[in-house]
């Protein structure tokens, strides 16, 4: 099982989802994608998007801060058989 990283820092919607979709579509079932975003709206957007698409599930969401104190929203997706 591979874990890919996607840097979506500084990107506003729709770009975090657009980029995550491209990655997910190219991944094998069981592989994971960890997205690091700075847009707080990405939290509910990823929750909503996984309800619509059948190719990924949301394994984890957590909030961290970078060294400058900027909030980071980290989303862990897993590619399904869908």
């Amino acid at each position: 099982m591979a874990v890919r990283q996607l840097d979506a820092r500084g990107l506003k919607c729709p770009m975090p989802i657009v980029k995550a979709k491209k990655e997910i579509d190219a991944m094998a079932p069981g592989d994971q994608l960890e997205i690091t975003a700075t847009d707080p709206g990405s939290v509910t957007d990823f929750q909503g998007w996984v309800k619509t698409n059948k190719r990924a599930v949301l394994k984890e969401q957590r909030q961290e801060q970078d060294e400058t104190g900027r909030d980071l929203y980290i989303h862990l997706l897993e590619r399904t058989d869908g």
Partner: protein
Amino acid sequence: MAEHGSGAGSVPAIDVGDLLQAADRGHPLLLLDVRNEDEVRAWKLEARRPIETVYVPYFDFIEDEPGSVAKVPPGRDVVVLCAQGGSSEMVAGMLAEAGVPARNVRGGMVAYGEYLQPAAVPLGPGESSRFAIWQVNRRGKGCLSYVVASNGEAVIVDAMKNEEWFEAFAAQRGLRIIRVLDTHIHADHVSGGPALSQRLGVPYSVSAGEGFDLRQPVAPLDDGQVLRVGGERGVTLEVRVMRTPGHTPGSTSYLVGGRYLLTGDTVFVGSVGRPDLGGHVVEWGRMLFATLTERLAPLGDEVLVLPAHYAGVQEIDENGIVAGRLGNLRRTVPELQFRTADEFVASVRAAVKDPPASYAEIIKVNLGLSSAPLDRITEWELGKNECAASARRAALG
């Protein structure tokens, strides 16, 4: 899909102000709201007349473009809305490619939350030649500021955080701002009062009775004190300071020209200000009852109440103003019907609800105890105000 939305300016757009103006007039727009379900539930764009709205999240367009485009009825004047204007631009681009003309709402709900709409309060004969009152409506939040002007001078009451806007508004009308007033320390939005007063080098006043330790300099005002707008001689407008505690212990109202009462959060058009934010609902509730029944009693029914908030677009009248004659409010506002303090307090206690989101952070900024970048303040302020005491009104928020 990433191509969409990247060409900024290629998709036709509409500003929030133009959108609201069209929708208020009843222009038959079709609003395509592409935010996710949680965001839609928390906060909607509202106009004086209902806007026909279709909800299709933008990620549905990413997943199934033709299927999502098909959900938009043909032959309509479509405007696309999202949180910040990026996703809606992408969707408007997809619609255009599919032959469905659509405009992007520039800046999305963030722009809606910041948009300020000024409207002149209609004055009586003999008044409009002497002074003017503009009500500045922050439509997305239901917050109201005031510009009170006479003879080339103005005072600003309950300025919102976009202080440059107020400065420009006054400058365009040849008005010199002489003082900046707040009715109280706001808990639901960041005040522009201190920043505006510092920019202009004019006094900032809010009641010392708030019981807070304010860091910014405050010019104290006494109950009954009269401020003059328009110079000391000739045509001047009197603004009388009235202590009206209850929503907060230092809440102050300003009576303009003897007939226009800027009430802050003391009395609204459909309710009264909630006295529970300080955690002393019984004590502050009794203060508010005394304010409503004793302090406001000498004012005549013809006095026009101009509040700092409203609960819903239905409170905006045909002149685009939120206002009510004191006589009407005395008959219709549920909280003004109680005859005893006990009944009143029981009612406001029953309506206690959660404080506004981020209110502790907002109060700190308004006291000058901390500062925050604008994007953080925008995040704190998202959504409608929750300042009214009645549960019925709260449900509308």
